């Protein structure tokens, strides 16, 4: 069984390939050297999965490239694949998320961008159009900009209902459409914004990442800027699932692709102390939808450990058993081939890891 792991870093895209059930890895790169690869996507729906990369050159701007031969060659259209309409007066700073749509929409790819906007492609990610209804949302002018900028970093299309999509942004919150984008509703009830005068606003929450449960498409898990939450009603309300974690701060939140209630998190100590809790490299897993958590450390460094794991730098593959991966700001990538029970180093000494995605190929 072959597994491909795409690793987006601050200075290019690296690809790791395993042909022995993820026991060993061959790492190649960098592709797109000197670009920040904040978004990588693997569209598993074509016979040969399509890779997508959101790349940003600090000099020459952002773009989206695709590959239909697992990274051997890449295409980028002559015209910008993703650009803000002239009337918006906005220009694309970065693509933060590339999310394939449901199986019933085989060419559908969503892109979350900075500044905060949602784009849709129906040709597999070669050309995108902005979703005007979200851009025109009356809240937009009051969305803030976190340290990473004002960006939609999470896009979760419903696996079966093509009219339902959830998006999230830092210092903006969670929004959801149930009518194929005709309207968008802020979905933040129960998520605290401790940094605002009113800590329970309709919107403005600093959501870092949201993941959808494998079994119940109306169940979500959110890592917030302090606060870890679950929603059981499609995002309408949220309750804390932070008890049992050593901290409620962090960036990543990953759901198991098949087992309902199984999620992964990499806690950091606090907003003002963004190091792993206890200065230990440890992933936390819940197998009961956040009711209880267990630390996973087998195979991870035991010495003091300081780098953070960013919001898209953790993922799961679709193998059996599921592989779990995370990359650090110090350029290390770890993988588990047994659902998180044990870990091994895939690559070290890379640039800061921004994003990872993995799939059986």
């Amino acid at each position, binding site marked *: 069984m072959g597994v491909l792991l795409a690793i987006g870093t601050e200075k290019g895209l690296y690809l790791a390939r395993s042909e022995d059930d993820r026991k060993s890895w061959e790492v190649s790169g960098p592709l797109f050297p000197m670009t920040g690869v904040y978004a990588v996507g693997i569209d598993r729906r074509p016979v040969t999965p399509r890779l997508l990369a959101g790349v940003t050159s600090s000099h020459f701007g952002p773009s989206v490239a695709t590959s239909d031969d697992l990274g051997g060659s890449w295409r*980028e259209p*002559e015209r910008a694949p993703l650009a*803000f309409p002239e009337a918006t007066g906005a220009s694309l700073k970065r693509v933060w998320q590339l999310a394939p749509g449901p199986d019933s929409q085989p060419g559908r790819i969503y892109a979350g961008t900075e500044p905060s906007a949602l784009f849709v492609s129906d040709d597999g990610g070669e050309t995108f159009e902005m979703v005007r209804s979200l851009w025109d949302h009356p809240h937009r002018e009051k969305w803030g900009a976190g340290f990473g900028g004002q960006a939609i970093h999470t896009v979760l299309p419903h696996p079966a209902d093509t009219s339902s999509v959830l998006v999230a942004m830092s210092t903006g919150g969670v929004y959801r459409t149930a009518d194929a984008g005709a309207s968008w509703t802020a979905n933040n009830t129960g998520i605290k914004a401790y940094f605002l005068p009113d800590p329970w606003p309709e919107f403005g929450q600093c959501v870092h990442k949201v993941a959808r449960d494998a079994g119940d498409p109306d169940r979500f898990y959110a890592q917030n800027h302090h606060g870890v939450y679950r929603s059981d009603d499609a995002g309408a309300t949220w309750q804390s699932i932070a008890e049992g974690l050593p901290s409620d701060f962090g960036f990543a939140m990953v759901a198991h692709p098949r087992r309902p209630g199984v999620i992964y998190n990499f806690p950091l100590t606090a907003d003002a102390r963004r190091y792993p809790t206890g200065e230990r490299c440890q992933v936390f897993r819940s197998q009961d939808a956040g009711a209880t958590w267990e630390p996973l450390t087998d195979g991870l460094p035991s010495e003091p450990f300081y780098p953070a794991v960013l919001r898209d730098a953790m993922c799961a593959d679709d193998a059996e058993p599921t592989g779990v991966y995370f990359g650090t700001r110090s350029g290390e990538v770890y993988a588990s081939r047994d659902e998180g029970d044990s870990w091994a180093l895939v690559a070290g000494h890379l640039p800061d890891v921004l994003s990872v995605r993995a799939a059986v190929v």
Partner: protein
Amino acid sequence: MPVTLLVPGVLRGEAGGAPRLNIDAAGTLRDVLDEVGRQWPRLERRIRDEQGAVRRFVNVYVDGEDCRLGAGLDTPVRDGSEVQVLPSVAGG
């Protein structure tokens, strides 16, 4: 006489490998870059964003003068002028 666009090495792949491009579009720097966009759209979007602004860390010189210190995209470009695109020294 056409305008000559000097393409930096890092962008020559977007111009078929050419270090210099001849462009029949004298007038203003905007006119020249618009014509670049028609003929080499991928090169042009490395230089300007979708709203037409020159990217922050790209410098454009018209006959040796930094357009940012002059009239920007309205900088006059005469027949025979040389437009040079250079990435600025930035980054870590």
